């Protein structure tokens, strides 16, 4: 294992470690960073970046040690080196920019004191006399290689780093907005926190902005074809590393900085306009049509030798491993968010079933969904559920990121089914250069920020929207060729009259009591909305009916209130076959989730819907109301206990459900969309 250490600990130097570690990892080496280096104020982005490298001190035996920023060495580094008790054969290579011979000698001596032997100290000023960012502890090196860019892109990706640019001129953002809207290139802006706030507070809040720590420099370089840097100097080590990596891998860098910092370092960059107002014309007129020629000229620059990472690898006796050119077989991985219940996972499994057997499919899912997926015969990577803690509530997503990153390779396809696009999903798609699809249900509740929800849509190649059964529920949230609407996706089961009777008989046997009437309640696991009062009311009213069996049906693993177990006519059933129970029931009382409503509708099962109303759920009240408006169900709000009791009694005693059953039987169902969705995904997976 290669350890990447740094002379002094700070947020900036941690960036240095991360950048170099990622570069070595990309070259095929096993790299790690002592977790002790993680700064307390690392911030969300860095934590994701660091997650794949951090190890507990002493967890792994060091085979090589790199020390960055050796021009300034503190006792933490020396202690770290000494505690590793490195064998004499372990190379220790230190890099630094030494302004004086004394600082070089001092660094060499201090390292030698800690190690008990001499380290190999490389003075970067020897081969980088004019570094892009003189003050950084980063060696600012890169894997110099030609990269096939724009393989999947019709137009180039242009990234603007605003640097120290002031945004007080309102015309500036207006200019970016115009650039963002034209069709000759895709624009994104890399901004500071303050710039981001200013943009979000402006009328141009939908500009595609990314923070400096939003993605790693390597990932930015992969997804950028043309980079333009503004401001005075370079905005920190991350942006410097981004520029170096981009140029080294055949991208085009345009130096728009006030002090022409890229040009003065000798980097093969273009000298661009110093104002963004002239940039669009410069890009369209001078750059975009001439990219191959510009890249060819840049590739001849001697400057590339000064940033070649292999120089450091050679010093450490490392040989870069052969890049894995082609994986054996591309795979499609479904990542359903469980949300409440298993709806996302069920929808994904329905689509997966419709895809050709020749395609390699797998799932990554939260524990509650794993049995559902595996019973379909599909491999599933278990993920970790979000922990309800204040300190690290997103910790599970970091783990998800690690697990997705471990299984997915370039050109695989990731299918995400959920609302909010997690950092893990966004990052893995970008970093692994995946094909990606977003299965995005509609019917977002009032008040949900559309901007927040759609912020990461651009990372997906396709958005697949499973429709609702009723047109008025199919709101459109984004537009474009990449958005595909498919019919409702619903799991359909068949149950004959005989099978229905057999199931009722099995239930009687299972629970040791005969019954004439079967009531099924599926009000959710209590996570989104507490339905214990409604369940108690239903259980209570059915208690006096000796010929009635009341089943409280939940997904396996759901939490069930203890009070539910206190009724003699009520039993709890945790099953993946709720539809079959519903088909066998006389009365079904259900929440109005997407799957529940469609299953009732497509199986023509009359139901009493009690919508749930958590802010992160879709708008169940609208869905239930659409059904009720067509007399396809009874819809009751969570507060209407008397209505609930009266309706249940009416359905049991006077066959009140018959009215709805007739309406359901006469209703023309829209064509389901699983096959279409599967086709879209198959096509995406086959594309490179």
């Amino acid at each position: 294992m290669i350890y990447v250490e740094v002379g002094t600990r700070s947020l900036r130097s941690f960036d240095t470690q991360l950048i170099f570690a990622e570069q070595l990892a990309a070259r095929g080496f096993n790299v790690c960073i002592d977790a002790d280096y993680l700064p307390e104020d690392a911030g969300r982005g860095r934590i994701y970046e660091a997650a794949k490298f951090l190890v507990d001190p002493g967890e792994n035996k060091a085979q090589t040690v790199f020390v960055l920023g050796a021009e300034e060495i503190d006792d933490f580094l020396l202690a770290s080196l000494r505690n590793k008790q490195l064998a004499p054969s372990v190379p220790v290579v230190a890099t630094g920019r030494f302004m004086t011979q004394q600082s070089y000698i001092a660094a060499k001596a201090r390292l030698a004191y800690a190690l008990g032997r001499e380290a190999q100290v490389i003075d970067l000023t020897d081969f980088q006399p004019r570094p892009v960012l003189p003050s950084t502890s980063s060696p600012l090196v890169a894997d110099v290689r030609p990269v096939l860019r724009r393989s999947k892109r019709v137009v180039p990706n242009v990234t603007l780093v605003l640097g120290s640019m002031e945004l007080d001129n309102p015309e500036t953002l207006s200019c970016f907005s115009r650039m963002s809207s034209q069709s000759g290139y895709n624009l994104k802006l890399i901004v500071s926190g303050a710039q981001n706030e200013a943009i979000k507070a402006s009328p141009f809040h939908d500009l595609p902005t990314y923070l400096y720590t939003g993605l790693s420099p390597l990932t930015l370089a992969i997804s950028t074809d043309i980079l333009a840097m503004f401001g005075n100097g370079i905005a920190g080590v991350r942006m410097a590393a981004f520029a170096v990596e981009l140029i080294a891998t055949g991208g085009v860098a345009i130096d728009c900085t006030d002090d022409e910092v890229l040009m003065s370092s000798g980097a093969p960059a273009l000298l661009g306009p110093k104002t963004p107002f002239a940039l669009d014309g410069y890009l369209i007129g001078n750059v975009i049509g001439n990219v191959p020629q510009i890249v060819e000229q840049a590739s001849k620059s001697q400057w590339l030798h000064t940033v070649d990472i292999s120089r450091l690898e050679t010093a450490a006796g490392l040989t870069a491993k052969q890049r894995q050119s082609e994986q054996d077989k591309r795979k499609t991985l479904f990542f359903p968010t469980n949300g409440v219940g298993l709806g996302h996972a069920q929808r994904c499994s329905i689509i997966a079933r419709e895809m050709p057997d020749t395609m390699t499919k797998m799932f990554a899912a939260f524990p509650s969904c794993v049995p559902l997926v595996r019973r379909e015969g599909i491999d599933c990577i278990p993920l970790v559920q979000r922990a309800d803690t204040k300190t690290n509530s997103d910790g599970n997503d970091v783990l998800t990121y690690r697990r997705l990153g471990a299984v997915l390779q370039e050109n695989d396809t990731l299918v995400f089914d959920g609302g909010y696009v997690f950092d893990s999903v966004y990052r893995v798609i970008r970093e692994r250069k995946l094909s990606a699809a977003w299965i995005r249900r509609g019917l977002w509740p009032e008040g949900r920020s559309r901007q927040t929800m759609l912020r990461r849509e651009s990372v997906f190649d396709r958005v697949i929207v499973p429709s609702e059964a009723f047109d008025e529920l199919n709101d459109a949230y984004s537009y474009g060729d990449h958005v595909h609407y498919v019919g409702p996706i619903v799991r359909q089961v068949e149950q004959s009259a005989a099978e229905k009777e057999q199931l009722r008989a099995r239930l009687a046997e299972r629970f040791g009591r005969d019954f004439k009437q079967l009531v099924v309640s599926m009000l959710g696991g209590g996570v989104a909305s507490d339905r214990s009062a409604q369940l108690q009311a239903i259980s209570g009213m059915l208690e006096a009916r000796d010929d009635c069996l009341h089943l409280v049906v939940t997904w396996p693993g759901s939490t069930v209130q203890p009070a539910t177990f206190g009724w003699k006519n009520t039993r709890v059933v945790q099953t993946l076959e709720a539809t079959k129970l519903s088909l066998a029931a006389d009365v079904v009382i259900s929440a109005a989730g997407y799957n529940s409503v469609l299953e009732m509708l497509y199986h023509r099962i009359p139901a009493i819907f009690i919508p749930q109303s958590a802010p992160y759920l879709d708008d169940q009240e609208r869905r239930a109301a659409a059904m009720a408006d067509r007399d396809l169900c009874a819809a009751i709000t969570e507060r209407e206990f008397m209505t609930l009791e009266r309706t249940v009694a009416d359905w049991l005693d006077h066959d009140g459900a018959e009215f709805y059953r007739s309406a359901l039987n006469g209703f023309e169902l829209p064509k389901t969309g699983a096959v279409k969705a599967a086709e879209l995904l198959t096509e995406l997976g086959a594309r490179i």
Partner: protein
Amino acid sequence: MLAFGRSNTPTIAYVIEPRFSGGTSAAVAAELPVAAECGQVVVHAITSRTFGTNQHVSPVLRQVLDDLNIPIIWDAPRISADFVFLHNPSFLKFQDTLGTRIIARELYVITHENFLRPGGAEGFDVSSCLSQIEASTISLRKTLAPISPFNRSGVVDWLATSRVARQWDVLGSDWFNICETEVSAPCETPQDRRGRHSRPGFEKFPVIADLDSCFPSHSQCNVILGADALLNARVLRAHWTLLPFNAITVQEFFGMIDFFVYFTAPTWQESFGRVVAEAVAAGKVVLTNPDTGATFGNAVLTCQPSQVDTIIADLIAQPQKYHDQVARSQSALQNYSAGKFKAMLSGVLSADSGVNK
């Protein structure tokens, strides 16, 4: 400014960076009274970048200067004397000019800090420091004065590969540290009570495996004074008593041990080793590496960390041997007395300048 000391004797200017907190200031403090007996002494302090801009003076030095009524002259533009003794040129390592003109018949640069580390790597930017001195000095002769055998070998080896070698002579005898601390008798019956003390720098400590060999779990006690770095890095052993630097007095520390086991990082070497002399004076048997031991001749036992256990076991089994070793050590300290130093200094002051009169 009048020089302090006897008239009609040579004028001696000390050029020092008085903010060195360790051996250099202690060594200068010990030799100043002797020098004052031999000549008229002035003390010039240089404000170097190594220690910043304040004008703090090391306490041990301040005490002696007060006793001798010698004022410190800070950053004089010109220093003139028959003899100029510039102590520890490494204080110039973070700058490129010595802002003082030195005019002397003889300049002696006392090389407290080793020019070369074990293995031959430079200890500091020697060339830069000596060049600054050379460029600022007009003298008949410039001499480097090593303070110990190891220190001398570094000076000689460095000069052998340096283009400035011809500018410098090397003093034939060592400009040793005066060690005149009070001598204590050894304990009656030595026990396996081991310890070491030093400043807490990483260079002062061997690798952890060697530290484990020197201070094993089976010894009665292991006291490490100056263990700040070990404490900070959580390098802890149940059988170690780790104390930060200055947590107890040196006298208290010596009261806790019978064997002073002193190894440093193999890439660093004490240039003199006052700490060893103090342990000997305190009546302890000292075990150390051969290069450190070379300064003190047979005053200390030299060995490798892996041999420490055997040597200590042998001396505990034979207390008389222990007593003999301490006696031998303490008598060897006579070589570092003020009297011996005065003899060495007299030789320096009376030496022929080599210039025809």
